[in-house]
Each structure stands twice: as C-alpha cells, then as structure tokens.
C-alpha cells in the first residue's frame, strides 16, 4: 500500500518537474504543440461540418417525407404519332394512384400530383411560381400544414372549389406582409380564394424551394386550370423506409400491368426512391467527412513527429540532468518513464488546446456563418485521448535514448 502511494507520489513529483521544464521553454513547447493543435482542431471542425451537413440532408428529406416513392411520368416522345419539342407527360392517370394504394400491401397511401409553372396575380402584384394540384391525402404525404387559415379537404376536391394554399414565399411576394387568408388571387385567368398559408418546408437537396408554390385541390387543377386527363406524379408512401425497395418493385409491377409498354423506349415512368436519395446524399457527405478526418489525422501524426523531435532535443539538452538522476538512484525505467510522461503531457496539452480551438472555431462558424454545424463530444474526446496516446508513442524513442545513457558519461557531458 505505502509502496504504491510512494510510487504515485514519485509520479506526481516528476510530473510537476516535467511541467516546470516545459514551461521554461514556452516558444519551443508552443511550436511543438502546434501541429497537434491544428490537427485536432481541424478534426473537430470537420466532423462538426460533416454532421451539420448530414443533419441538414436528413431534415430536408424528412420535410419531404422519408418513406416516399415518387413515381414520375416520363416525357412522351410522341403524341398522336408526332414528335414533341416540349415534353408532355401523358402516361399516369388519377386511377393509377388508387390502383397502387389498393394493389400493394406495403403502400400506406398514394396521391396523384399535377404541377405546372404559372403566373399568379393578387390585387397589385404578380409572381411566377409553381401550381401544385393534389388530394388532401397528398397534403398529408407531403407534410403540408397550415400556418394560418386551413387546408382544403375532400369536399373542396370533389366540388372542384377554387381554393388555394400559398407557400410562404408566394404569400410574401403577393401580399407583402398582409394576411392573405380570405383574399382573392388569380392563377392564370382563374380566380381563387386563399384559404391558408403553408408552414415553411424549406429547400430540398436538389435546390427546389418547396415554399414557392400554390397548392390547390387535384380535381380543380385538372378540370378548371390545366384541362388535362393525366397527372405528372404519384406519391406513394410506405410504412417505413425499410420497405421502400420492396414497395418500389410492387409499384413497378402494378404500373407495368396497367400501362402499355412503349416500343423502343424505357419505362413510361421513373420511380424516385427517397431511401436511395438519402443513401446517396449521406454517402457523399460521409465520404467528404472521412476525407477531411483523414487529413486531420495526418496533420495530428505530423504533430506527433514534432513532439518526438522536441523530446529528442530535450534529452540531448538534459543529458547531465539524466546523469545526476541516475547517480541519485533513478533506474533506467524511471528515466524512460519520465520522458514518456513528458511527451504525453505535451501532447495532451496540444490535444486539449486543439479541442478548445476547434470547438471555438466551429461555434463561431455556426454563429457567424451560413453553415449548420453540429458540435459533439465524441470527436473532442477522441482528439484529446488520441493526442495523449500519440504523445506516449512519440516519447518512446527519446525515452529509450535517455534510458540508455550511461550515468557517468551523462554526468560528464558539458
């Protein structure tokens, strides 16, 4: 017991001495730390950036619905036997949506959607935006909610009522701060009543602003505005994202059975799988994170080499001190341990400084810049512990060299 306590005391004693010696050469100590500091700080900032990007992707995906398949009608190469310059989408019908909902056990809901670029007028202003027509079920799938006013319902859809929901961007352009609910707008030449303003959805990873649209009931859109018999998109919702790949196969089979195959072209529809998009996005951001983390770790390793070099200089400078310690009873391993400890302390200080600088930089960037950063404890802990371990390793060679010195030769060094 007392033996252990004495050892611990001795360790603390040499720790204090090591710190004093490091403090005696502040510039050299600082320089030897800088590599490690930069490495750890970079690591922390990069992980924060990477996690921020990933969270942003996830949030956007969630705003669109992560359990979603988007079936898009492929542009028809010919209409009535004639090639078209402007693409026309004719393959999907409203009935296809209900067929999917009924045909696959994995589909929770399916909603047809039509879209078209339009100019919308209010009393005094107009703006170019996108008209979206869908069912109340489509509002649910797309997670569209009313910030003010109300959503349209099944009755509005059946009665082909001219009621409109405005995205926040459109509402701002047309009404400039006034409350749009209850006011009149025109979509093209068709008059509508604004019944609600949507809660903001944000921009998706493809850069589409989902707040810049006017949403109206599907039937109203088809019969009263667009006058077309087909729809552009069908949204299909799965119970969870794990089912998406199987649901995609189901949907493909159902649509193949319903739609006549075109000669010489691919499917008349495209299925966008949110799970695949999510995987791709995350994969990209992770690859980026890994690359930068690799660079940061490389920088930290270079920092470790710097520490080893400084420790070697220190051994050479303190040869006489080593000889004295040997004369006073220090064993080879006591000397070795002291230098390893010093190296580890040096590296731990560098790591801690790197963590502080990294966290401060990430926090500053998050506050001042347009970036979203997630500061987490894991990389900070990893940076600190990794640095300390690196210091232990970096101290090995200098420590071995110090321990090898013969006491009498070391004492006689000038």
């Amino acid at each position: 017991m007392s033996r252990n306590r004495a050892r611990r005391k001795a360790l603390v004693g040499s720790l204090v001495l090591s710190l004093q010696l490091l403090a005696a050469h502040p510039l050299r100590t600082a320089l030897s730390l800088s590599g490690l500091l930069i490495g750890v700080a970079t690591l922390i900032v990069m992980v924060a950036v990477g996690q921020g990007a990933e969270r942003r992707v996830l949030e956007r995906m969630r705003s669109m619905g992560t359990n979603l398949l988007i079936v898009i009608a492929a542009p028809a190469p010919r209409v009535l036997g004639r090639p078209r310059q402007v693409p026309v989408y004719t393959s999907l019908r409203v009935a296809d949506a209900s067929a999917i909902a009924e045909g696959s056990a994995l589909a929770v809901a399916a909603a047809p959607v039509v879209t078209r670029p339009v100019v919308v007028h209010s009393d005094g202003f107009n703006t170019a935006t996108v008209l979206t027509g869908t069912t109340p079920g489509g509002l649910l799938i797309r997670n569209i909610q009313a910030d003010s006013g109300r959503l349209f319902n099944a009755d509005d859809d059946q009665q082909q009522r001219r009621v409109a929901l405005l995205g926040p961007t459109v509402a701002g352009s047309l009404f400039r701060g006034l409350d749009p609910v209850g006011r009149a707008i025109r979509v093209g030449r068709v008059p509508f009543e604004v019944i609600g303003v949507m809660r903001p959805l944000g921009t998706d990873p493809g850069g589409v602003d989902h707040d810049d649209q006017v949403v109206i009931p599907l039937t109203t859109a088809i019969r009263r505005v667009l006058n077309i018999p087909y729809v552009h998109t069908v949204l299909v919702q799965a119970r969870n994202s794990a089912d998406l790949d199987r649901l995609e196969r189901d949907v493909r089979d159902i649509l193949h059975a319903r739609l006549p195959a075109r000669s010489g072209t691919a499917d008349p529809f495209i299925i966008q799988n949110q799970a695949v998009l999510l995987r791709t996005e995350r994969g990209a951001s992770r690859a980026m994170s890994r690359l930068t983390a690799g660079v940061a770790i490389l920088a930290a390793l270079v920092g470790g080499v710097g520490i080893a070099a400084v420790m070697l200089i220190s051994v050479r400078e303190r040869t006489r001190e080593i000889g004295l310690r040997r004369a006073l009873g220090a064993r080879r391993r006591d000397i070795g341990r002291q230098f390893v400890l010093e190296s580890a302390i040096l590296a731990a200080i560098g790591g801690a400084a790197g963590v502080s600088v990294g966290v401060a930089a990430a926090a500053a960037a998050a506050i001042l810049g347009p970036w979203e950063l997630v500061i987490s404890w894991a990389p900070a802990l990893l940076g600190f512990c990794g640095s300390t371990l690196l210091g232990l390793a970096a101290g090995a060679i200098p420590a071995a060299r110090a321990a090898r010195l013969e006491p009498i030769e070391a004492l006689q060094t000038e």
Partner: protein
Amino acid sequence: MIDVENLTKSYRKGATATQVLKGVTLRIAQGEFVSIMGRSGSGKSTLLNILGLLDQPDGGRYRLDGIDFSTADDDALSAARNRKIGFVFQQFHLLERASALRNVTLPLLYADGESDDGMARAEMALDAVGLSHRTHHVPSELSGGEQQRVAIARALINRPVLILADEPTGNLDAQAGTEILDIFRRLVTEGRTLVLVTHDMHVAACTDRTLVLDDGRITAERPGAIPSRIPREGRIDRA
C-alpha cells in the same frame, strides 16, 4: 565498509585503450574519513565512480557494505546508489529551476517505501547544513558554498552509509571550503563513512587518511593531520 581488491579499469577511445586503474587494492572501515589524492589522469575520479557504482570495473573485486556488486543489474545498482551512497560533486549538479528544498527531495523520487515525511526530512537535512533559511531559493540565488551545502543535504536525505565527494571544494573559496569540510567532519563523527577526491593538500590534511594514486596504482598512504581541523562548536550552526 569498502573492500577493493586488485581493481582494473581501462577506457577505449577509438583504437587505443588507456588503462586508468592498474590494480588498486584498498580497505576503508566504517566511520573513516579518507581522501584520495593524485595528479590529473591518475585515475582518482574513475576509482571514485566505481566506488559509487556509477561505473563498473573491468577486473578485480569490489564489496560495499559486504555486498559484491560486480554482477548486479541496473535496478540493484540504482537502488544501492539511492539508499547506500550520497554523492557530492565539484559542479554541485543542482536542478536550476527547482528550489533548494525540491533539489534535496530529488532522491526520494527514486526511493521506494516511506517517503510521506519527505518534506520534513528535507527540511531537517537543510537545517543540518545550516540552510534552513534558504529552503525556497533556487540555486542561482545561492552562493557557491550554499549550493554545495544543498548538494550535501541532498546526499544525506536517504541516510546513506557512504558519502562520496569529488573535489567538493574545487569551485569554492577558502572560507566556503572550510565550512564544507567542517560539515564533512561532523558527518564522520556521527558515524558515516566519507571518501573524497582532491588534489588540494590542505583538504587532504583534514581527513583521517590519505591515499595517493599515481598512474593507476596506490603509491602512498599517510594519515591526515587531524588535530588542527576538528570543527569548532557552533561554527556551522549559524541560523
């Protein structure tokens, strides 16, 4: 205490080997105060280093306190240096940034076992060399004589049986040198064995016995002039 028989030692520098000790035989009893004299290169420092277990002889036998250290490993040699021997060097060899007190406690870092009272023991050791008022000064704030007295306190902290001093007064003026020798004399009267290397006749004259080393061999042995050098009471205990 010290039993040396036919000790040899040579150093190799490049292709040429120089034999420094050519068969030294000597005996020193416990409580003796012995000086080793000789010209530069006579081998006196080498002999002292071997006696202090800092260097290993090539041949011969050396027993310290009844133990033969010729086949001992690093741990055993280190432990013996720590517990049995106290060193005093010509250049003092103090840690420059550490206080007198911390310098004195340095050997305790490497001593296993009871060191809880280390600080108290260090203060006592400093008190014994008349430096109780200088415990928190760093070496650069101390005079040469004071620095050497810190080094003596450091040598005493683990209560060694043997104290080895290599030209302990070589860097000091006559006054400070006398004080150091007075301290040594008192340590001997307390029962410690003290061996010092010097080339100063006056220093050697203060010891019980002088061994003269010439060209690697002991060529003369004569008693020191003890009577005139007995420490006067109270001399070194000034506060």
